[in-house]
């Protein structure tokens, strides 16, 4: 049983952490989501390092980085790209939008119109876009980190539940602890040397393949199903986890296990990712839905190893 990050991935986390002090868990989650082939929704107030996380992560992983700042007047074509008539060649030429990248930071996604949001989300799901009736495959791997500001409500369009479901997991970064903040104030973090790529396409492919083959034992499946059943049957939530949610939980669990150097998953893996997988998928019927509340509710009602 190993609960520290496997030696092969430790440099990655260390490298990102050099720029985002004291946020190992958020970094690990991002890495896990990436290996699981999903996308991340960062929900937090501005100025806690969402962009830093995305940028550094893209650098470390050796991915092309693209960024779209979502605004109220952003159109789908601003993300996807347009075909225009090239008078020189006399043909329609595709001007690719920022989505044709490996790593896309979709900043403040809730500021744009639903039409634009759904264009991005469709691309995230399908891994290809359709412009003027022609289908264009996106680069592989394709990874999106979308951020949204939970507290600003004026002029925002909240993502509908069906769209939120497309993100593998969602979490905030949160304020740094005292120690880390002190280091930041003293000029650690951002002053660190620019991150250098530590992974290449082949290494990423290997890792993703390994994640897919992580073993889920019958006992673990039982635990997962009990958790999922509880979200559906307990009557505490407005709606339970969907099958896509269940798949997301399994995928994140696998990725987390692999990240910690195991080829099999244990209940601790499930517990490590459960809150983040469920936060944007579940809503309590009464009271505020928070990460800790979801964790407490599920862990205390669905015992592990029992």
């Amino acid at each position, binding site marked *: *049983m190993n*609960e520290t990050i496997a030696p092969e991935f430790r440099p990655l986390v260390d490298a990102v952490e050099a720029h985002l002090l004291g946020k190992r868990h958020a970094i690990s989650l991002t890495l896990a989501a990436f290996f699981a082939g999903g996308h991340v929704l960062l929900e937090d107030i501005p100025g806690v390092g969402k962009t830093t996380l995305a940028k550094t992560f893209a650098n470390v992983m050796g991915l092309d980085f693209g960024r779209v700042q979502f605004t109220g007047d952003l159109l789908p074509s601003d993300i996807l790209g347009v075909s225009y008539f090239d008078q020189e060649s006399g043909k329609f030429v595709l001007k690719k939008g920022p989505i044709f990248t490996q790593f896309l930071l979709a900043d403040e996604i809730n500021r744009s119109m639903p039409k634009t949001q759904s264009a991005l989300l469709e691309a995230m799901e399908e891994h290809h876009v359709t412009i003027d009736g022609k289908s264009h495959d996106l680069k592989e791997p394709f990874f999106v980190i979308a951020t949204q500001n939970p507290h600003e409500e004026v002029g925002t369009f909240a993502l509908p539940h069906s769209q939120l479901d497309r993100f593998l997991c969602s979490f905030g970064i949160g304020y740094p602890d005292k120690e880390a903040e002190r280091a930041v104030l003293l000029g650690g973090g951002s002053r660190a040397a620019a991150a250098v790529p530590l992974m290449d396409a082949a290494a990423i492919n290997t890792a993703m393949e390994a994640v897919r083959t992580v*073993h889920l*034992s019958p*006992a*673990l499946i039982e635990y997962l199903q009990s958790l999922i059943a509880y979200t559906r049957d307990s009557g505490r939530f407005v709606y339970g986890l969907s099958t896509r949610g269940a798949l997301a939980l399994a995928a994140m669990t696998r990725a987390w296990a692999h990240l910690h150097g*195991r*080829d*099999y*998953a*244990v*209940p*601790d893996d499930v*517990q490590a990712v459960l809150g983040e997988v469920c936060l944007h998928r579940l809503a309590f019927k009464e009271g505020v839905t928070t990460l800790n509340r979801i964790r*407490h509710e*599920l*862990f*205390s009602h*669905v*015992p*592990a*190893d*029992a």
Partner: protein
Amino acid sequence: MAKRLRAWRENRELFLLDLAYLAVVTPVLLLVKAPMLLFLLLVLVLLLARKRGSAATLLLVALAGLFAIFFSIYGAFNFAGLSRLKLFVELILYLLLLAVSLQRLTRTINFYLLVSPVLILALSLFFFDSIAMLVYVVFEVFVLLWLILAYRTRADALSSLRVTGMLFALSLPWVVLLFFFFPRISFEHASYGFRGDEITRTGHDGTMRMDGAALLVPSERIVMEVGFQNAMPPDGQLYFRGSVLYRDKKDHWEPLPAYVRRAFAPKQRAQEGMYRSADDVTAYKVSLYPTHKKWLYLLDLPLEAPEGATINADFETTLEKPVDEPQHYDAGSALVYRYGDRTERTVLAYARDVNRSANPRSAKAADTIAAANPDPKQRLNALLHFFRDQNLTYSLRPEPLDLNHTADSFLFDKHKGYCVHFAGSFVTLSRLAGLPARVVTGYKADRKNSVKNYLAVKERDAHAWAEVYLGDHWQRVETTAAAAFIDSESAELLRQTGTLEDNGERLTRLNLYLLYVKYQVETWVLQYSHFRQMRLLENVKQHPALAAKLAAAFALIVLASAALFLWLRRPRCKDRLLCLLRPLLSRLQRSGFAREEGETLHRLFTRYLDLYPGSALTEVDRLYHRLQYGTAKEDAVQFKKAIRAFLRESTAKGDSDARKL
């Protein structure tokens, strides 16, 4: 075959129903007559052949069934006494079996098919009244309840079995309470006895045969069981009186002629003053197995006849009809007694009657003794001395005596015989010496066959002794005690059946204890009647200690049932590895590492390991997760070893902690 079996099991409802019928019809098979058995066999064959119950088949089966019923009860139309009820119940049972068979052949379930197992169970209760059946009925009720639960809840067999067990546990105190306050309806002769108990007991019959050619094998079969109300009387007083014989018919002895007996029957009953005081009356309860003779056996000397029986002048206790069913009777006897001061002349004449010419040598000896001892008591003693001096040998296989001169032949020629020869010869000798005497046959019980106040009387306890009239009372004489030797062959025979030496003593003891338990159950459960209930309540009123004991026993039952219920309800160990971990987890809990809400085992172990790094728990943690969640096919042996290692370690740690304190 296997395929059919599977197909049968797949039709779950019919399968469960068939199991129910299997449970309830099994005891009935002992009961039904051959034609009905054949009919049931036919139905079984048809079912196995998977014949659809077409109209023609059903008609034929119905006809066969009716014939079977007819032949089963043919000749049983004896409407005397109880057999009417028995016949009626039997008929209902047969009709029910026929109806059920027909319905079962159609392969559809309907209401009466569902209800009939319970009816058959209830009907079979009319026929059986024994411990075996008691146990089986409890088993049947359990099985039926289980099948009903499995049928109605559609739960798997094991979980419905658990629920059945829980229901049983809960019902236990109620059963005891209801049983205590609502005894069995006791109607006369309601007990039929288990069929095994109906085998005739031999041992004592009304006459006494002298021809020793018949091989006498000491039989261990129980004739009757006796429960004494108070302490067990001493060995010398356990004479159960059967019949009294006066007339020497050479090859056998006979009682008084019927007309003589009738003439004196009412006159000579046990009287006050015959025994010392009322305290000397020993009360006891007898269960007598069917002997097909009319005698009831009461301890010498019976004072009160059980209901329906009469005691005659010779203190023989008899029923009007032979004992064909087990008899249970309460009796009282005076074990220290003296009677006979008003014995009729006619009876004494029979007790004096002797043919002097048949046994000339005995007559000569008797004359000599009679001349030397004018006092009857002294004369009896002299006779006994003389008898003893003849070096008589007790033998179970004696050479046949010359039956024309029985006493002479036994005393002076053969010297070998068993109790009847001793008793018969001594009575002849007494009569020759002028003392009226008679032979008494019955059972001389052996205290070896007793536990506490329970006594088993076996066939080999059948015995004969003599009674001599000493002018004012009858004196019992244990004639066999005069035997000087026991021959080796008989000793061997007796030893084989565990009478003489302690060879097989323990086994005999165990068997006796089993008999004792069986007897107690029969007395307090099977024959617990309104009468017994009244007596028990009366006792409780008089002895508060008994009430306390009963209350304590009931509390114990409640506790036991609660414990059983909780045990069945305990969380089931679904997972083998978690089962193995149980002792470890409870040890952790005792040392302050209880599992918190929602905590995984790994986090629990980590908490412990943070405090005690290097503990054997590291290995347990690793192996548990590898076995439970990993792909590795490691066997659990290592895991068990690791758990044991940790338990040893923590025990040692606990010791050292204790020392530090």
